[in-house]
């Protein structure tokens, strides 16, 4: 399964790095290369008081719900210092990796899909995207509450930005 509609991160045994036992407290797998399966992925720079060394950590995430999970989990209580979304897109017949800087995350519902919950990401280029395919939100989506603004407090407008680019 290398081409999947489910966004995931694939690791191969051949890319594994063998480290001395005890390097990590748990039996983690350490790799020098991974492959992204699906249309896109997130790179998050995260701060949390739950981190032992209090240093920000970089997470590679496939699912939008996990991004929100890190923020809303009482155990993690994470703050997003930076959130980037990468996706392979084709423009003028040429493939490129599009990267978008996320400024805010909101929760909404899709009224055309039984009010299913949707997570929306507002990017610095004014675009808004949602779903595993990182598509533009359809008109049937009703915007709900702000989940988080992204960025250092000193450098980011913490007012509620709307997915249409406005500021509440």
């Amino acid at each position, binding site marked *: 399964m290398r081409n999947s509609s489910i966004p995931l*991160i694939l690791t191969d045994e*051949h890319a594994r790095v063998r480290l001395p036992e005890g390097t990590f407290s748990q039996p983690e797998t350490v790799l020098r290369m991974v492959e992204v399966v699906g249309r896109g992925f997130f790179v998050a*720079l995260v701060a949390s008081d739950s981190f032992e060394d209090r240093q920000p950590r970089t997470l590679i995430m496939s699912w939008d719900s996990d991004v929100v999970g890190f923020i809303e989990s009482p155990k993690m209580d994470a703050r997003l210092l930076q959130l980037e979304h990468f996706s*392979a897109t084709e423009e003028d017949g040429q493939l490129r*990796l599009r990267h978008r800087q996320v400024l805010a995350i909101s929760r909404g519902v899709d009224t055309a899909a039984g009010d299913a919950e949707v997570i929306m990401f507002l990017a610095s280029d004014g675009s808004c995207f949602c779903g595993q395919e990182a598509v533009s939100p359809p008109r049937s989506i009703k915007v709900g509450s702000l989940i988080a603004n992204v960025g250092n407090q000193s450098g980011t407008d913490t007012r509620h930005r709307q997915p249409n680019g406005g500021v509440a």
Partner: protein
Amino acid sequence: MFVSLPDYRFHVPTPLAAPGAAYWRCLVLSTTTPWYLLTTRADENSPADTFLMVWDSDVVQAIKTCDVQVESLTLVSRNRNRNRWDSIDIAEIWEASDPEYEEPQVLLVDVHGAEYSGYFMQPAVGVQRLRLVVKFPVRSSGPRATGEEH
């Protein structure tokens, strides 16, 4: 390096999984040194494959040994002053030499002509180009890096 988080493993039935592969929803990056996003595809009608790598030598090795179209390379570099990652679109990859080091070097040239090399992919000084590994088609690109003001 990329470090797994056991709680975020996604179990794919063995018949569906690629041989020797494991699947994850989330990984941790354990380094603050630059890393790389290499996009390839088997042919013009195939979907993109994106690889995340932590060593520049792996990028060159992959390009030289894989029978695929290499579409793009993005250098992701830590901006320590602003405590964030910057994404830099690369236009050319060169095998290179540096008089200060015995080991072969990798030289990256971004879409604006700036050169980077070394463990921290600093602006290259005195690095000599030896062999062109790949040159990507030049786009009328936007910002130099996602983290820069413009």
